[in-house]
């Protein structure tokens, strides 16, 4: 599964379900400015755990929290590899 495509799909899906206006998902986009609130992020992470089979937030407690959308994708890509 294409990790990046799946992440983008989940961001869009959750934003739509929660009536959030999603900012253009560029690598530089700060997650805080993405338009999603913490509940939406929690839901994205839960759904990615289901679809990708990993939850890098829980799997590695020492990992640095992603700040940008690009970090977020790398965070998952590294966990998958």
């Amino acid at each position, binding site marked *: 599964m294409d990790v990046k495509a799946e992440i983008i799909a989940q961001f869009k899906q959750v934003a739509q379900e929660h009536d959030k206006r999603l900012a253009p998902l560029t690598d530089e986009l700060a997650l805080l400015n993405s338009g999603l609130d*913490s*509940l939406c992020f*929690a*839901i994205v*992470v*839960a759904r990615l755990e289901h679809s990708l089979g990993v939850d890098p937030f829980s799997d590695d407690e020492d990992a640095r929290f992603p700040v940008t959308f690009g970090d977020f994708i790398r965070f998952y890509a590294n966990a998958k590899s």
Partner: protein
Amino acid sequence: MQKAKPVSLRSSIIASGTLSTRFLVGFDTKATWGELVNGSILDCAPEELRGKCVLLATTDQFRASAALIVLDGIARRVVLFPPDVSLDHLAYVANTAEANVLVTDNAEAANAQHGIDQILMYSRTATPVPVDRGEQLETEWILLTSGTTGQPKLAVHTLGSLADSAWETRPNAASIVWSTFYDMRRYGGLHIFLHAALTGTSLVVSSALEPVADFLLRAGAHGVTHISGTPSHWRRALMSPWAGRIAPEYIRMSGEIVDQAILNQVNAQYPYARIEHTFASTEAGVGFNVSDGLMGFPPEMLTRNPKIEMKIEDGTLKIRSTRTATRYLGSKSPALKDTSEFVDTGDTVELREGRYYFTGRRDGIINVGGFKVHPEEVEAVINRHPQVAMSLVKAKKSPITGALVVADVVLKPLNGEKEADALRSGILRFCSAELDAHKVPVAINLVPMLTIGESGKLVRRHA
């Protein structure tokens, strides 16, 4: 002032009359109440048990009922050990209750670690034995409730706190056949057992070994007219093709939050039955009955019965009455009542548009990023979905918000060919329309069945 002489269960049953024409019907045994008050199925002379603390750990409800009739008024204390509680707890319960006699029909219980010297097995049938009832003790009845530490808590009642002094034999009692999905070692079942015993009716008891379908068939065959259970019991019963085999005149629900969906579904299945829901708990006793067909309760319920004082404090229901348990046994046990003798039920309520609604258990709250979610509130919404039979909402750990809400859902039978994914999203849309975002489950798992404990309640494992 001289204390009133305690009245035993046996003499109360005799006073209720019609002993030879009404029955206690078990899974594989049946006896008239007359046979039960005049005989004993214990494998010893009842007099040998005078003043002792008896741990009653039988598999069968009929035998437990028959033993209670013999023991109340003779034993100092009777501990009702439900068949679903692990025998690993037997030693703790025996020790805490200072039990010196174990009565059981179960070789596994007899051989388990319990530290009791005297073990009595049952004889097959109730045989008449003379019992000296000259001196009656006020026997303590010990009911087990689930504790937060894993060990059960032992709540102390007496016949006086469990039976309602206002109960009397009604003229039509002979035509009433009570039954209950509850086990009579649980408060909800014990209440019905005593109600039937003391108001002159028959009673059909279920068995832990009996599938719901078989119980419904048996209850139908015995012409059950009055029947009680938890909403979970009823949801399971309505899923059975044999739900139509009983035709009750009266239905009672208690023990869990009653939502509008289950009230409506039971009403649709049994349109001629009067349906009530009761608030009761092992510690607080019976609070009130609601009979207007709506979930929740009107505020005047709190003041309707002067003998039962109720108040809402910090969002939870508190009760002070003669029906409450007096204390927990055990030196390390928490206080059962506060300093003004009120029992905190731990059941949370919310006042909305002039009516109180139960929202859940204070200790079962899911915390989603600082927002509180009562699983029962979400279940009530899911259960209103036309294709849902029952649901269990629970927490899923989240690295972002601490927890999220997920739901296990059992669909109604004969659901057609609808795709699971379509059903899941339909249920989610239903939730999104009714609930705040943090209360909407992030995942719906379709499961074949949910576990209902012997207490009749959904088995919840708090995260």
